[in-house]
């Protein structure tokens, strides 16, 4: 479309050679070149011979239109190398592409900028074949030099990219070599079972735009929100058009995007995607209901119910995708903290360290009650860290006993606890069992979970107090001062694979929450989890690896370093007319296939 329009313009010019017109056009061109790209989006470039595009399988859609989504906080940067917050990553996810991609819907890897790859027998060498004829969103060609440059930057310790740890395998950073313009070789110090998935987090950046700032040591500061759109390019389906502080960020079609639909038309279908900044979930819900926003994700169960009543009338559909990857849990402070240890904390930790005690707590907690009361039924009860939403790694053999106060009492008796005449539980030395649970004050669900646990445990004669803490203060206690007794927290895995979770389960992991500080040797089950996690990291066969991780889940469910409670459902919504909408359980839930989305009919909403 764009090509034919420009041809027409040149024909008109040659038909009537007019000096004034020529000057006017030249002046317009000069002025236009200096303006930011706020005009209507450029149409997709026609596919050209030799361009190895990826053909998608979705329903062929209708070109044009604008999608409006919302973000609860503003993106902080457009730099894929330094971004760590959800909003920035979500926007960058639409502007950048990776070599091998995790399909958010199937949760499996699939070819992206690399059309194919070979793995050496020992799993240490990956040779990737890149697609030919691709262009960045500014029209400049893409080849192996861009891949090399991207990995060089991500792996540079001076740059402090968040991906550096992920790209360090077996204690050594991955090395990257160019074989030719379209072949790249990656060498790992040891086999990594999830190596293919590592590529998903590394966005390929254009060397021609960023090399200068990298050499000047300024790469972390480049591509901020104030950067002119002309200075930013990527391989994603969209490119930046306009950022209005505090209000919105608009992306426009990347006319050179490397995916096409079944009819060999270059994607994406939408001309533009606008993200409005809406600072709270409630405000977001109101704007979705009013029709200002076309898709919404991360809905709470309350808001889902509130929106449910108006689905037909307001022209949107809501989707309950079932449990996602997030798991909520209770854990006790098992850190070795002799220097700060008061006598009171010492005997409390004696209880917490007993497996029977933790098992009794787990048996007494009414997980179904939490699901019903906190999530209005939109969550799944959980007995280990892998949720039923994780298609590839869920272990159905983990025992899921229903709530049983009798069993809990039996376990406590076995551990030497007894009940005083007033019903209060006491340990063998006569200390009444009482402790506090800290929970994030800003998270209504966790505060409610803590209250339900308090009530459940009171039926065992335990006295539990709840201390709501501001999130930063809570993190400080959990990670720095270890000044807490028990805590309710949740973790959201970024990927279905167990690999990113290794920091939680390895003995020296930075997220080994319940015991970050250790002076005593690990218990046998802790040592076994550590060993299994290390083994699964280097086991290449999926079935063998699954057996190892199944055992980890079993050990967690038995020994309960984290007493897993529930996994909330992923709740999203979208306009009825949105075509190819296939929400996923992995982040980005709704826009992971933004290039395939389209509106079935002309939108008549007031905003368009």
């Amino acid at each position, binding site marked *: 479309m764009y090509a034919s329009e420009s041809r027409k313009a040149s024909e008109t010019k040659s038909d009537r050679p007019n000096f004034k017109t020529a000057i006017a056009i030249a002046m317009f061109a000069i002025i236009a070149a200096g303006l930011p790209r*706020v005009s209507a989006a450029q149409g997709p470039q026609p596919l050209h011979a030799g361009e190895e595009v990826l053909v998608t399988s979705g329903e062929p859609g209708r070109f044009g239109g604008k999608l*409006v989504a919302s973000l609860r*906080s*503003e993106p*902080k*940067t457009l730099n894929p190398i*330094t971004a*760590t917050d959800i909003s920035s990553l979500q926007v960058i996810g639409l502007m950048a592409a990776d070599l091998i991609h995790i399909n958010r819907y199937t949760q499996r890897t699939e070819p992206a900028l690399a059309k194919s790859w070979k793995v050496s027998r020992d799993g240490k060498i990956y040779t990737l074949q890149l697609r030919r004829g691709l262009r960045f969103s500014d029209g400049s060609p893409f080849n192996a030099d861009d891949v090399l440059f991207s990995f060089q930057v991500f792996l540079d*310790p001076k740059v*402090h990219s*968040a*991906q*550096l*740890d*992920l790209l360090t395998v077996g204690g050594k950073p991955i090395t990257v070599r160019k074989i030719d313009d379209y072949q790249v070789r990656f060498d790992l110090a040891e086999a990594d079972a999830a190596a293919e998935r590592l590529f998903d987090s590394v966005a390929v950046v254009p060397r021609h735009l960023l090399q200068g700032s990298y050499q000047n040591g300024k790469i*972390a*500061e480049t591509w*901020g*929100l*104030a950067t002119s759109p002309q200075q930013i390019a990527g391989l994603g389906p969209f490119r930046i058009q*306009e950022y*209005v*502080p*505090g*209000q*919105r960020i608009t992306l426009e079609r990347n006319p050179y995007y490397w995916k096409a639909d079944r009819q060999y038309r270059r994607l994406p279908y939408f001309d533009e995607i*606008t993200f*409005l*900044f*809406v*600072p*709270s979930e*409630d*405000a977001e819900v*109101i*704007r979705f209901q*009013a029709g*200002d926003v076309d898709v919404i994700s991360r809905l709470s169960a309350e808001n889902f119910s509130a929106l449910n009543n108006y689905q037909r009338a307001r022209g949107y559909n809501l989707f309950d995708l079932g449990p996602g990857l997030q798991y909520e849990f209770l854990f006790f402070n098992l850190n070795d903290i002799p220097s700060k240890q008061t006598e009171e904390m010492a005997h409390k930790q004696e209880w917490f360290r007993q497996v029977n005690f933790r098992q009794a707590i787990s048996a007494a907690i009414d997980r179904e009650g939490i699901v019903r009361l906190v999530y209005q039924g939109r969550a799944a009860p959980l007995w280990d860290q892998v949720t039923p939403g994780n298609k590839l790694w869920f272990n159905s053999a983990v025992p899921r006993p229903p709530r049983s106060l009798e069993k809990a009492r039996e376990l406590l008796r076995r551990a030497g606890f007894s009940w005083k005449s007033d019903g209060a539980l006491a340990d063998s030395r006569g200390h009444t069992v009482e402790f506090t649970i800290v929970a994030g004050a*800003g998270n209504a669900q966790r505060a409610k979970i803590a209250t339900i646990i308090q009530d459940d445990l009171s039926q065992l004669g335990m006295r539990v107090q709840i201390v709501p803490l501001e*999130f*930063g*203060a*809570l*993190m*400080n*206690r959990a*990670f*720095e001062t270890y000044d807490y007794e028990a805590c309710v927290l949740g*973790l959201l*895995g*970024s990927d279905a694979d167990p690999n*990113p*979770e*290794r*920091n939680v389960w390895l003995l020296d*992991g*930075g*997220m080994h929450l319940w015991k970050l500080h250790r002076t005593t040797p690990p218990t046998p089950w802790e040592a076994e989890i550590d060993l299994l996690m290390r083994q699964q990291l280097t086991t290449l066969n999926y079935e063998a690896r699954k057996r190892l991780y199944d055992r980890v889940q079993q050990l967690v469910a038995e020994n309960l370093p984290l007493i897993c409670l529930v996994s909330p459902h992923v709740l999203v919504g979208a306009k009825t007319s949105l075509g190819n909408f296939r929400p996923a359980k992995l982040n980005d839930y709704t826009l992971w296939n933004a290039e395939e989305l389209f509106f079935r009919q002309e939108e008549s909403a007031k*905003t*368009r």
Partner: protein
Amino acid sequence: MRYFFRRLIHTMFLLLGVSVLSFLFVALAPGDYFEEMRLNPQISQATVAAMRSKYGLDQPLPKRYFRWMQSVLRGELGFSFSYDTPVRPLLVARAKNTLLLTATAALLSWLVAIPLGVWSSSRKAKWLDRVLTLGTTTLLAIPDLMLALVLLLIALRTGWFPTGGLHDIRFSRLNAWGKVEDTVAHIFLPVMCLVLGSLPILFRHIRSALVEVLDSPFIRSARGHGIPEGRVLFLYALPAAANPLISLFGFSVGTLLSASLLVEVLMSWPGIGPLLVEAILARDIYLVIGAVMFSTLFLVGGNLLADLLLYLADPRIRME
């Protein structure tokens, strides 16, 4: 002039004190910006420690204060961790929107409150005065949060007003009149919310100030001379009752940057509110301190303005 300079020096000291205190309080709060990063299992502790040292968070407090002071003198007001940029441009871009909202609301509140207050006081204890007093008391009792939610609900149900934001997404493509219309439509609800929130206070102050003056002998004498009531009220009584109102005016100028935080968050108004809330939750400390300093500047500026106006309006103060 000497009075002005003396006040200016006081103001400087006040700002310095506020900066030290806010720096101290923010630094004393447990946790920092990089703490939350630790919940990302993919980032190691070493990386978090490296980032912390990159931004100087591992330095002792006085050194951090000194570095922050240097950046204030450079006009940057510190450095935001999350946005990776100096604080000033972040605040300035949003302060404009906040001021647009609050200045409109303040202007409107005063324009409505003065005639209402004057009118009500001149009919003291009559039915109109009672209705107005009852109405404003009711408004005073309704929390801002509820007011905002009710207004949003009305907008949602009727579709008459946008439910949030400052502009429509097609704003840049509208003509000049369309832009004005769009802005008015968007600003209406948040302004209504702020006006309904501040009107009762202004109204009651104006009313009580005037009621006192209207009882005084010089007003009775003016009325006795047959001077028209409107003239008595606005030209004689109002200036005599002006002193507490000028102080109140200074206060409303002072709170221009901070009065609308809640409304901004609820109605997704792109002002300082959402930025500040996010910064506080994320422990983006220099952004928080920058916003506090900005608000303090307005507060002391407003008070200074009020004092100067009082100085000009009241000869007794000049004599002192």
